[in-house]
C-alpha cells in the first residue's frame, strides 16, 4: 500500500521538475546579445580563484557594454558556480552549451574542472578559454581549448632558473592536496633535472590541515637541502610559511604563483618576509618602470578592480581579464560570433598585451605566453618587490 | 535421556557471579520452571541457554550437540526458541510478518534466487504466509493478522512472541515471564497455551513469578538464588522446601520491593503449604 502511494507521488514530483525545466527552456529564446558563458569556483576551496575571476568578468562585461558592446551587440555573462567540483562543472557546461546556447566559454578556475569539460566543448565545438594552470590543458593541443594563465611547468622553470642563479642544487619540495599542487609537484619533478636540481625531500600536507611543522621538521633535518619549494594555494602555503619561520628554518623559501596575491602576505604576516615566487607583473604594477610595455594594462586593471571591489587585486582575476579580452578581440577580428571563425581568430592572437604578459598563440601553442611574462618577486617590507 | 544438559555453568559480570556452577538436566516433553527471587539470575540463565551470553565456564549440551559458546542463531537452528521478558518484537512489521520471520530457517534460499525472485520462492512465501497466519490463530491472535506490531496491546505482543518462537519449529521453548503484565484472564489463557505446547511435543522452560501458573503447569522446578541452585524437584517437594521459603521470605522483601504482588503470592502459597 505504502509504496504504491510512493510510486504515484514520484510521478507527480518528476512531472513538476519536468515542468520547471520546460519553463526554464522557454526563457532561452532571444539570441540578440553575445553570450559569454562561464563556470567558476566561486565557492569551495578554490574560491580565492573563482571569486576575483567572476568579479573581473562582471566588471568588464559591464564596462564593455557601457562602451557600446562588441560589434554593436551587448555582451551577456552567464556564470555558474561550480564550487570547484568537476562533476558540477560538467553539468553546468552542458547547461551553458545546450540550454543557454552561449557563444563562447571563459572559465574553469581549476585544472580538474577544466579537464572534465574538455570533451564536452570539443564535441560541441565551442571556443573555450580556461583560467586554470596545469600544462595538460594545452598539451597536447586541443582544438577548441585555450588558456590564459602561465603553466605550472613555467612556474617551476622560472623558480629553478632563480635557484640556479643562487647556486642551489639540492632542494626540498612540499605540496598540498589540490590538483594545482599535485600537478605542479609533478611538473617540477619532471623539469628539475634540466636545471641541474635534485629534489631530495618530497613532503605533502592535507586539505584543511592546521599545522605542517611535522613535515617541515623532517625537511629541516634532511641533510643537504639548500632551498624549499612549496607548491600550493589557499591557506596551506600561509601556514607552511609561518611554521617554516617558527621552527627556524633559514633556507630560502619559494612559493608558487598559486599564492600570487597580497592576501598571502596578509595571511602569513611577518613570516612572509623573504619569500620568493614567480608571478605576473600585475602584483608589482606600481613599481614597474614607465618604459615597461605592460605597465598601462596592469595599472589600469588594478585601479579599476580595486576601486570597484575595495579589495586587493590578484593575478587570478587578471587571467579572466585576459581571457575576456582575447575573446572580444577575436570576435572583432572574426566579424561575428561564428564559433569556428572565433576559434581561428583566438588561435591567431598575436601580440595581445594582457595582465599576464604578451600572448602569441599559434596552432601549436594555445596559451601563447613565454617565460619572460613571469617575474620573480620577493616579499620585502610586507610588499611584493621585483627581484633584480 | 535428557534434551538439555547443563553442567557446571558459570557466568561472571566483572567479578560478580551471576550464575555460579549450575548443573541440571531437562528431560524431553516436560515443563521445567525456573523460579527465584529478583536478581537470582533467571534471565541471565535464559540468555546463556540461548547463546545471547557466552558462559564463563561450564557446558551446555542440547539434544546431543555441545552448543557451549555458540551464537544464538545456532541454538535456534538446533531447535531452541525463546520469548523475552523485555519484548523483542519487530515493531517495524505487522504481526503476520513477525511470525513469518520466525519461519526464516525453514524458508530461506540462495541470494541469487532471492534477487531474481524465482517462482519457487513465491510458492514457499505463500506457504509461509499461510502457516504464519495459522500460528497466529493458534495463539489466539486471529484479529491481528495484518495489524502493525506497534499498534498491538501488551498482552497480544507476548503471545505474538510465542507464535514467532513456535514458527521456528522448536524442540525446546524458553518463556521468560510470559505472565508478567497480563491480567488474570490472560494469565489463565496462558496456562492453557502452555499445556497445548507440550501437547505439540515442545519441551517448555518457564521463568515466571506467577506462582499459581508455575505450580499448576510445572513438572519440575529449579529454584535459583544468587545464581546457585537452591532446590530442584517436582512442584510439591520444592513448595515444601524450607530453604526456598527462607529465600523468598528472608531476602526478597529486604532486597527489592518492586515485585510486591509476586512476593505476596509466594508468601501466601508458602504459608498455605506449611500449615
Amino acid at each position, binding site marked *: 500500500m505504502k509504496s504504491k502511494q510512493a510510486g504515484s507521488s514520484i510521478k507527480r514530483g518528476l512531472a513538476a521538475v519536468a515542468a520547471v525545466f520546460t519553463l526554464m527552456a522557454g526563457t532561452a529564446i532571444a539570441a540578440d546579445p553575445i553570450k559569454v558563458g562561464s563556470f567558476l569556483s*566561486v*565557492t*569551495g*576551496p578554490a*574560491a*580565492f580563484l573563482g*571569486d576575483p575571476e567572476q568579479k573581473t568578468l562582471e566588471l568588464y562585461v559591464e564596462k564593455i557594454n557601457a562602451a557600446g558592446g562588441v560589434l554593436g551587440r551587448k555582451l551577456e555573462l552567464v556564470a555558474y558556480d561550480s564550487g570547484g567540483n568537476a562533476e558540477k562543472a560538467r553539468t553546468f557546461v552542458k547547461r551553458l552549451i545546450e540550454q543557454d546556447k552561449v557563444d563562447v566559454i571563459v572559465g574553469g578556475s581549476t585544472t580538474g574542472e577544466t579537464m572534465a569539460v574538455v570533451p564536452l566543448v570539443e564535441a560541441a565545438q565551442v571556443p573555450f578559454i580556461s583560467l586554470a594552470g596545469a600544462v595538460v590543458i594545452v598539451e597536447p593541443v586541443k582544438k577548441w581549448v585555450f588558456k590564459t594563465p602561465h603553466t605550472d611547468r613555467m612556474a617551476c622553470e622560472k623558480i629553478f632558473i632563480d635557484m640556479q642563479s643562487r647556486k642551489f642544487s639540492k632542494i626540498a619540495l612540499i605540496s598540498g592536496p589540490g590538483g594545482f599542487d599535485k600537478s605542479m609537484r609533478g611538473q617540477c619533478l619532471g623539469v628539475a633535472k634540466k636545471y641541474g636540481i635534485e629534489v631530495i625531500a618530497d*613532503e*605533502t*600536507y*592535507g*586539505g*584543511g*590541515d*592546521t*599545522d605542517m*611543522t*611535522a*613535515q617541515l*621538521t*623532517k625537511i629541516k*633535518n634532511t641533510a643537504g637541502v639548500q632551498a624549499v619549494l612549496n607548491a600550493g594555494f*589557499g*591557506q596551506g602555503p*600561509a*601556514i607552511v610559511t*609561518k611554521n617554516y*619561520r*617558527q*621552527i*627556524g628554518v633559514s633556507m630560502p623559501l619559494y612559493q608558487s604563483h598559486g599564492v600570487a596575491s597580497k*592576501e598571502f602576505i*596578509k*595571511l*602569513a*604576516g*611577518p*613570516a612572509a618576509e623573504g619569500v620568493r615566487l614567480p608571478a605576473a607583473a600585475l602584483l608589482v604594477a606600481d613599481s614597474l618602470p614607465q618604459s615597461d610595455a605592460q605597465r598601462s594594462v596592469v595599472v589600469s586593471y588594478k585601479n579599476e578592480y580595486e576601486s570597484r571591489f575595495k579589495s586587493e587585486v590578484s593575478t587570478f582575476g587578471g587571467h579572466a581579464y585576459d581571457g575576456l579580452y582575447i575573446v572580444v578581440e577575436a570576435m572583432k577580428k572574426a566579424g561575428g560570433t561564428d564559433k569556428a571563425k572565433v576559434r581561428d581568430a583566438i588561435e591567431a592572437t598575436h601580440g595581445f598585451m594582457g595582465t599576464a604578459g604578451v600572448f602569441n598563440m599559434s596552432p601549436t601553442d594555445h596559451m601563447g605566453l613565454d617565460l619572460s611574462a613571469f617575474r620573480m618577486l620577493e616579499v620585502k617590507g610586507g610588499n611584493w618587490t621585483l627581484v633584480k | 535421556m535428557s534434551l538439555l544438559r547443563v553442567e557446571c555453568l558459570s557466568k561472571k559480570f566483572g567479578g560478580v557471579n551471576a550464575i555460579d556452577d549450575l548443573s541440571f538436566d531437562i528431560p524431553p516433553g516436560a515443563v521445567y520452571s525456573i523460579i527465584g527471587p529478583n536478581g537470582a539470575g533467571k*534471565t541471565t540463565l535464559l*540468555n546463556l541457554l540461548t547463546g*545471547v551470553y557466552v558462559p564463563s565456564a561450564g557446558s551446555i549440551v542440547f539434544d546431543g550437540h555441545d552448543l557451549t559458546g555458540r551464537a544464538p542463531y545456532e541454538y535456534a537452528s538446533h531447535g531452541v526458541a525463546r520469548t*523475552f*521478558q*523485555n519484548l*523483542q518484537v519487530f515493531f517495524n512489521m505487522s504481526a503476520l510478518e513477525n511470525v513469518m520471520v520466525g519461519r526464516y530457517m525453514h524458508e530461506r534460499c540462495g541470494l541469487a534466487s532471492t534477487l531474481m525472485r524465482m517462482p519457487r520462492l513465491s510458492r514457499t512465501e505463500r506457504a509461509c504466509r499461510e502457516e504464519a497466519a495459522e500460528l497466529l490463530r493458534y495463539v489466539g491472535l486471529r484479529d491481528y493478522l495484518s495489524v502493525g506490531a506497534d499498534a498491538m496491546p501488551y498482552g497480544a505482543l507476548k503471545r505474538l512472541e510465542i507464535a514467532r518462537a513456535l514458527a521456528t519449529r522448536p524442540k525446546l521453548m524458553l518463556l521468560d515471564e510470559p505472565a508478567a503484565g497480563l491480567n488474570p484472564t490472560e494469565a489463565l489463557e496462558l496456562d492453557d497455551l502452555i499445556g497445548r505446547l507440550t501437547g505439540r511435543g515442545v519441551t517448555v522452560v518457564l521463568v515466571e513469578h506467577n506462582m499459581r501458573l508455575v505450580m499448576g503447569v510445572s513438572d519440575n522446578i529449579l529454584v535459583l538464588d544468587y545464581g546457585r541452585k537452591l532446590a530442584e524437584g517436582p512442584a510439591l517437594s520444592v513448595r515444601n522446601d524450607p530453604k526456598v521459603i527462607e529465600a523468598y521470605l528472608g531476602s526478597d522483601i529486604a532486597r527489592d520491593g518492586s515485585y510486591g504482588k509476586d512476593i505476596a503470592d509466594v508468601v501466601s502459597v508458602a504459608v498455605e503449604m506449611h500449615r
Partner: protein
Amino acid sequence: MSAQFVQYLLTGLTVGAIYALVALGFSIIFNASHVINFAQGEFVMIGGMATVSLSAAGLPYLLAIPLAIVAAALVGLALEKFAVEPARGASVVTLIIITIGASIFLRGLAMVIWDKRFHALKPFTGDTPIPIGGATILPQSLWVLGVTLAIVLALTWFFGRTLLGKAMLATSHNRLAAQLVGINVRMVLFVSFGLSAALGAVAGILIAPITTTSYDVGVMLGLKGFAAAILGGLGSGVGAVVGGLVLGIAETMSAGYLSSAYKDAIAFVIILVVLFFLPSGLFGKRGGERV
C-alpha cells in the same frame, strides 16, 4: 632525533587540543540528545570569523573574543530552538540530517555575511617561537594548551559541582529518570547546544592565529572532532580529550615518521583498529542492552 620527536609531540598536542575542544562539543550535545551535531564545526568557524571581523572593526581582543563566543552560543541556542526542538520525536538519523542542513546553511550564511577569503588573526601574545628541548613552540600554541586545560578543569567543576551540570549529567545517564526527579530536560538540551557552541567558538578563536580562518574551516575540524569523540568514546568527557590528543599526535607522528601523504589515512586506520578491539571507543560506556 629526539628534538624532532619533541617537535612532533608539541605540534600534535596543539592540534590535538583543538580536536579535543571540538570533540567535547560533540559529546555534550550527544549526552543531552543522542544526536551527533554535524554543525559543530560551524561553531568553530563562527568563533574565528566573528573575532576576525570584530577586531577588524576596531574592537580589542578583550571585547571581540567574548562577543564572538556569545555570538556562536546564540547561534547554538537558535539551532536548538528552531531546528532541533521542532523535530522532537524524529529519529536520530533525521536529526543528524537536520544538523547537516544547518551546517550547510550556516556556512552559506557566513559566506554572505563575511566573504570567501582566508583571514589571519593576530596571535594573542606575539609570534616569537619559544625553544623547548631543541624544538620550538609558538606562544599561541601555549594559549591553545592552557585554555584547553582551563576549559577541561572548568567543565569538570561544572559537571561535578553545579546543579545544572549535575542535571545535565543525570539526563545523559537516564533521560526518563531525570525527568521524573524534576529536571527540565528541554532546558538541559537547550543549554547543551549553547555550551558546545561556545566551546567550538573558543577552539576556532584559539586556532585562527595559527592556521588562518575562513567560512569553510568548519568542515575538516568538525570531521576531526567527530573522529576524536568516537575514538575516545561518545559522551565521555575524558574520552573526548584523550581522543583529541591521541588523534593529533597520531597525525603528526605519522606525518613525521611514516608518510605525510597518508597521515590522515593512518590516523583513521588507528581509529578503526581501536574500534575493532573496543567497539565503544577508549572510554565509552560498555555493556550491551538488557533483554
